[in-house]
């Protein structure tokens, strides 16, 4: 793997599978009473967040802490950034403080790329403008694989049991190890033009062998989308019956007034996923959303809360996947091939 994770395009199929398989290992940790590993003890991970994103920040924070890293949260609000400090100066400051990894969320596309030129530590892109959000794609791939690959796999909801129902949280996760998403049909719906989640998912899911289709109004597709490794459709209804996965994108508030579509109600009628549309999906198909959701806009409440919905799982898988990425980028200590000796370092757990 490379030193940084900035784009899903940086990941070969082997890299991506290594991350997913590592995440699978780490997921077993979640079942233990003590969830903490000593692997990144003494390493410093900085969460550098220029945009409000509590869910992504705490996901990275939880991931780093479960690996025993020291975590510094640097929010642009109320910091020197608000006083006009440049990204470069902030980078040099973090560098001087000895950050081993910087997790950056920024409103400008390419900010993570630029940052990587100014710091020695690893840079993890936690979302840069309308460019990419590679760990979101990884957690989505992880979620899809757990649900639809291995074990009973595609063809039914398999052994999955809703959270809290006493199950282990996966169909047969170990069985999916090493497997890609070959042949799975994923439909990504909504504002692709401005979506970093869509960009990263198109790249990663196609690398893993999935057949990706983008379904959106033409105004919300990039002009050159034809060069992407995916299909494009303006008609969501025709895509649903052949989709194994439907991934709904959030409609940002500011798009609603910029002539991308006539009205939010019309958008919802044509591209929102309601119960009637969900009924057109194959029985085994799952519904994903990166959050936060606009219930009643791109996704109806009854869909979001249905058994097909993986939205809560995605959050849990986010922590695991980000642990895997941090672990692999920072090189940790030797990675145990099979089991984690959870009892070895009880002192560091809190």
């Amino acid at each position: 793997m490379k030193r940084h994770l900035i784009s899903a395009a940086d990941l070969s199929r082997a890299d991506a599978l290594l991350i997913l398989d590592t995440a699978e290992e780490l997921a077993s940790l979640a079942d233990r009473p003590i969830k903490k590993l000593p692997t990144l003890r003494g390493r410093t991970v900085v969460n550098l967040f220029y945009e409000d994103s509590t869910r992504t920040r705490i996901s990275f924070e939880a991931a780093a802490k479960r690996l025993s890293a020291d975590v510094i949260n640097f929010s642009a609000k109320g910091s020197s950034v608000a006083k006009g400090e440049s990204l470069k100066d902030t980078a040099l400051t973090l560098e001087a403080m000895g950050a081993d990894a910087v997790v950056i969320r920024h409103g400008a596309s390419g900010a993570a790329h630029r940052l990587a030129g100014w710091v020695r530590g690893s840079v993890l892109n936690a979302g840069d403008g309308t460019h990419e959000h590679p760990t979101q794609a990884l957690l989505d791939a992880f979620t899809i694989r757990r649900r639809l690959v291995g074990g009973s796999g595609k063809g039914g909801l398999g052994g999955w049991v809703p959270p809290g129902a006493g199950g282990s949280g996966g169909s047969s996760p170990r069985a999916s190890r090493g497997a890609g998403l070959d042949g799975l049909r994923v439909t990504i719906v909504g504002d692709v033009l401005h979506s970093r989640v869509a960009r990263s998912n198109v790249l990663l899911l196609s690398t893993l062998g999935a057949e990706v289709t983008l379904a959106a109004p033409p105004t919300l597709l990039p002009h050159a989308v034809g060069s992407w490794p995916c299909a494009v459709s303006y008609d969501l209804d025709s895509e649903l019956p052949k989709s194994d996965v439907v991934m709904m994108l959030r409609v940002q508030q500011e798009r609603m007034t910029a002539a991308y579509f006539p009205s939010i109600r019309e958008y919802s009628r044509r591209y929102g996923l309601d119960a009637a549309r969900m009924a057109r999906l194959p029985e085994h198909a799952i519904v994903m959303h990166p959050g936060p959701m606009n219930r009643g806009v791109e996704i109806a409440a009854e869909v979001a809360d249905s058994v097909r919905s993986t939205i809560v799982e995605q959050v849990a898988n986010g922590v695991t996947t980000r642990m895997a990425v941090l672990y692999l980028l920072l090189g940790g200590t030797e990675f145990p091939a099979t089991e984690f000796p959870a009892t070895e370092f009880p002192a560091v757990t809190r």
Partner: protein
Amino acid sequence: MTAGHPEATGNPGTAAANQARWLVRGVTVPGDGEHGSRVTDMLLSGGSITAVETGLNHSGARVLDAEGLIALPGLVDLHTHLREPGREDAETVETGTAAAALGGYTAVHAMANTDPVADTAGVVEQVWRLGRTAGHCDVQPVGAVTSGLAGTRLAELGTMADSAARVRVFSDDGRCVSDPLLMRRALEYVKAFDGVIAQHAQDPRLTEGAQLNEGEMSARLGLAGWPAVAEEAIIARDCLLAAHVGSALHICHVSTAGSVEIIRWAKSKGWPVTAEVTPHHLLLTDEFAVGYDPVFKVNPPLRTEADIAELRRALADGTIDCVATDHAPHPVEAKETEWAEAAFGMTGLETALRVVHQAMVDTGLLDWAGVADRMSVRPARIGRLTGQGTPLAVGAPANLTLYDPAAPAEAVVSAGASKSRNTPFAGMELPGRVVATFLRGVPTVLDGKLA
């Protein structure tokens, strides 16, 4: 290739140097198609070319051995940002014109988007005088079309035309005169004093927040797209306006194949339209943005291979009249940022001729006589300059550039005479070397260094 005579030292800016005579020996003057290129001596005296023949007597004259060098009429830039007054941290008239001289230029047009804006006789005269004081090349101020570049009411165009700066080219460059009625009035109004409106063609609504040419790269990089149509729509409109009112329109920094097609059509109608292309749009594509280094961020944006090919063809066949640098210096901090935060623009004066050499001459699209036409003769004509862009003949002002086309390709260094370092060509190997520049018989550059 060096000033070989022992007396060839001392400050050429002094009165004594002004009176000095120079013998440029064995220089190649490019042919013009009818006549082949020829090797000759050239005597520069009293600010003019006083003899062009072989075997000239050099007694009393300083000798410059120009064997292997090409003589071009001093280059003329229609589009330079000198930043003074207002942003002297990025460039001054002194440093910008020094960069121009090093690039082979003997005249530059200073764009109006300074602070304060060059929209009054006072400001254009100030810039003009600063140029005279600096002495590296002639500085011809461009006046703003609208007051404060605000695009709402005409600046005092006639007063600027009547001023000591004798402004003839007017431009809101950096911004488009997007209001069609205001553009029409501006075009009409400058007819009274043989003016020309140089339009920065960019539809503001189609480029809100735009960052990079709309295409594969912008889609991949997640940078807001800058569609070609935003340029082409304005060019089409303005060509029609220029035809309707019979006024001279010049189109700045043409960057798309579609723009070329429209200009070709307008010219085929005999309409009074001229156009320029920048060196960077002749060489660099939007793929350079892949690393989000804002040194490649420019307005209009870098386009595609297909656009470059068409721009080169158009420059070769004369559809595009000239090369103009759009030299746009910026301090380091304006570029060491996120892409979206960074300033638009690149420097270009010191590299323009070498870029044209690579893009146009090495490709066989243009010969050196063609280069002289596109980088000196035509821009001088469009800018209504007298004493610039004239053929290298007896009696002509001694404005010339000596260029070594055989100099081995060398990597461009970002540090030059310009105060700014934002050259997109840094590290790129470009052929050729500007050896000397003469402004009215006085060397401003000798042996590739400021004289």
